[in-house]
């Protein structure tokens, strides 16, 4: 799924943008626990979280993830934005709750990650 589609589906605001027409996101992973993300996530995934601190960006950085989505209208603090700019991580923010955001993405074709992959 392209960033443009994610943006449209979730009516999301783009806070930082390093995407291009080739940026393709296959999986979604939703959690406020960064260690769960570190245990399971693949690089071509969207990290969906309600956690708003710099460790979210650090986690994306370690996992080579291109994009983070903040749910429930959370807007990242300046230090989070600056870390995302430094590490070229795209940040999206949507007013939808986590479950609603995940549902909309799933309906439109985004896949989840299997725990035993």
């Amino acid at each position, binding site marked *: 799924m392209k960033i443009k589609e994610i943006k449209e589906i979730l009516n999301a605001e783009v806070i930082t943008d390093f995407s291009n027409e080739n940026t393709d996101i296959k999986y979604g992973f939703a959690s*406020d*626990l*960064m*260690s*769960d993300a*570190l*245990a399971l996530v693949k*690089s071509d995934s969207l990290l969906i*979280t309600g*956690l708003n*601190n*710099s*460790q*979210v960006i*650090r*986690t994306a*950085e*370690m*996992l*080579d993830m291109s994009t983070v989505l903040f749910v429930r209208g959370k807007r990242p603090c300046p*230090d989070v934005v600056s870390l995302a700019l430094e*590490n070229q991580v795209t940040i999206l923010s949507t007013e939808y709750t986590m479950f609603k955001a995940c549902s909309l993405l799933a309906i439109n074709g985004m896949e989840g990650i299997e725990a035993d992959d």
Partner: protein
Amino acid sequence: MTDKLLIRYSYNIAANDFIAAGKGSSSIKNTLKSMGIDASTIRRIAIISYEAEINLVIHSYGGMLHCDLYENKIDIITEDKGPGIENIDLALTEGYSTATESVRELGFGAGMGLPNMKKYSDDFDIASSREGTFIKITVLLQEV
């Protein structure tokens, strides 16, 4: 000899410094990238190093994070000043955590740190006493 240490990168990690947490691992990751090591190996090392660094911040009184580069492997090593892990077997169980509520609110302390480090390693050594914890995690480098 393939087991000769080529270079060591070391980072001083302060207890409870959640702002700086991850800087050491970020630096390790960028250094390995500049050396042309393959992306999947770097990713494994980055995850191990980041979990190890976060553990130092959350659980220790402070310590050192080292990245030792050999010809055929990389060791991530942490040495801290205590207070030690009471039960290592329990600490290695997925989901077991002694982290405080405030740490959990930051997105950590889910009890996946040590299990994650072990999961992504080729070799995992841990020793702990009240004086401190020593962890050495080895990732073998792929033949190019």
